[in-house]
């Protein structure tokens, strides 16, 4: 069953230099409980798409539903159903971890007592329990990311959007984050929609990939299927597959001239 479906989703920005078509028409469906890797070169429209699907930015064309709620007519329903972690995160470095978690619970209309309980639960689940009374600014990169995700999980959303969640993390923190994403899907059935520039991450974590380029979907499928189709074999490196899809650099093996 599709939990996200978008048809012709588009966004044009009006700038001083004329209109910029950041997203030209995205068609995609995401099944419930799926981990979807959303890939594309810089400027392909990944973040703009995410910002539209999370109601932060109104589309200038097309339509989409998230968890059965229409983006245009039921933004409130979409907001209740989804969690979003932006590239930059979203906590005030001066405030304590506990205060941020409790405020987030209150923003989702939990009672004061319930919000305090939920903060404790989230801290336990995301390995932040010893850090509740620390200032957000004093956390390490990996701890900060876990806090950002805890904030987005406050209302147990059915869909979690993560925008480049592992950028800037050390390898150990990245591995922890991958485990966390898998655990969310396995234990809670959460659908995870994530963008990344790390192809090993997309390969290891995603059930399915959607590659965008120039504001439209250039290819989609399981990592293995994409490798077979664009990289020449199921064992092709995803790097080559990605470059072949986006037309930058290495072409599929069969068209590459053989050097003698």
């Amino acid at each position, binding site marked *: 069953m599709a939990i996200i479906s978008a048809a012709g989703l588009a966004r044009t*920005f*009006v700038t001083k230099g004329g209109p910029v078509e950041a997203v030209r028409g995205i068609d995609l469906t995401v099944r419930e409980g799926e981990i979807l890797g959303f890939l594309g070169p810089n400027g392909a429209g990944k973040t703009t798409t995410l*910002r539209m699907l*999370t*109601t*932060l*930015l*109104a589309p200038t064309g097309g339509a989409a539903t998230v968890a059965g709620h229409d983006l245009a007519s039921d933004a*409130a329903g979409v*907001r*209740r159903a*989804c*969690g*979003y972690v*932006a*590239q*930059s*995160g*979203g*906590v*005030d*470095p*001066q*405030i304590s971890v506990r*205060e941020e978690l409790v*405020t*987030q619970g*209150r*923003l*989702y*209309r939990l009672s004061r007592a319930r919000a305090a309980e939920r903060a404790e639960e989230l801290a336990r689940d995301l390995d932040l329990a010893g850090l509740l009374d620390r200032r957000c600014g004093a956390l390490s990169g990996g701890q900060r990311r876990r806090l950002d995700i805890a*904030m987005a999980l406050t209302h147990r959303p059915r869909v979690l959007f993560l925008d480049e969640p592992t950028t800037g993390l050390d390898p150990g923190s990245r591995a922890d984050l991958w485990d966390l994403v898998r655990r969310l899907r396995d234990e809670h059935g959460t659908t995870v929609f994530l963008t990344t520039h790390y192809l090993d991450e997309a390969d290891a974590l995603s059930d399915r990939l959607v590659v965008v380029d120039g504001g439209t979907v250039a290819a989609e499928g399981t990592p293995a299927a994409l490798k077979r189709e664009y990289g020449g074999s199921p064992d092709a490196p995803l790097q080559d597959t990605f470059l072949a899809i986006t037309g930058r650099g290495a072409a599929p093996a069969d068209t590459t001239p053989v050097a003698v």
Partner: protein
Amino acid sequence: MLLHDTGLIYGRYLRQSLRSRFALLFGVLMPLLYLLFFGPLLTGLPLGGQGTSWQVLVPGLLLQLGLFGASFAGFSLIVENSQGVVERMRVTPVSRLALLLGRVLRDATVFAFQAVLLVLAALVMGLRAPLPGVLIGFAFVALLTVSLASLSYALAMKVRTPQEFGPTINALTMPSMLLSGLMLPMSLGPAWLDVLSRLMPFRHLVDAMRDAYVGSYATAHMLYGVLVGLALTALAVTVGTRVFRTAGA
């Protein structure tokens, strides 16, 4: 829901203000310096109105406090935008109007505190004014704070960088202060300046406050002041909410 959300946002930002007590006192420094070093120059001068020079100057200084304090309120929002805090909140079901009102009411509270400090200092310097008049004065500056802070937040959502925000606000506040007659009544000036200043909304607020400070409550100045103050506030809050609702472009 609006009340719940506004209270929540208000509490968050009031705690933020309380954490930076230095900034809280620093905001009142400029009008206080005017009071101490400029106020005594006026005591013997004919200012054309009723009452003492303090009854003319203090309303102007209170509006100056609101003008400069509230106009720069958007700076904190630019910082929060870069931290991603604003987007994080806009993804939740929180009321968009509350995101604006909670902040603006915090600014009005901070102002009220600073205004009381300033009036207390003015009493020491020699101000004597009827209590109802002083309270009406606070109400006017609260209106000014709410409207200017709303516009400042709206601008901060639009421009996004301190490099654009700072010069824009400076370019707007300085002429506003000079043309509104906050320091000296505009009626002292030539006719063209007097006419020009009537186009500034703050001119009408300061005229109404000066009447209130001498105990004249049922005057044309008061009527215009109230009308301009309410219209400005309604306009500014509408603009601000609209920007918070659709921001992101």
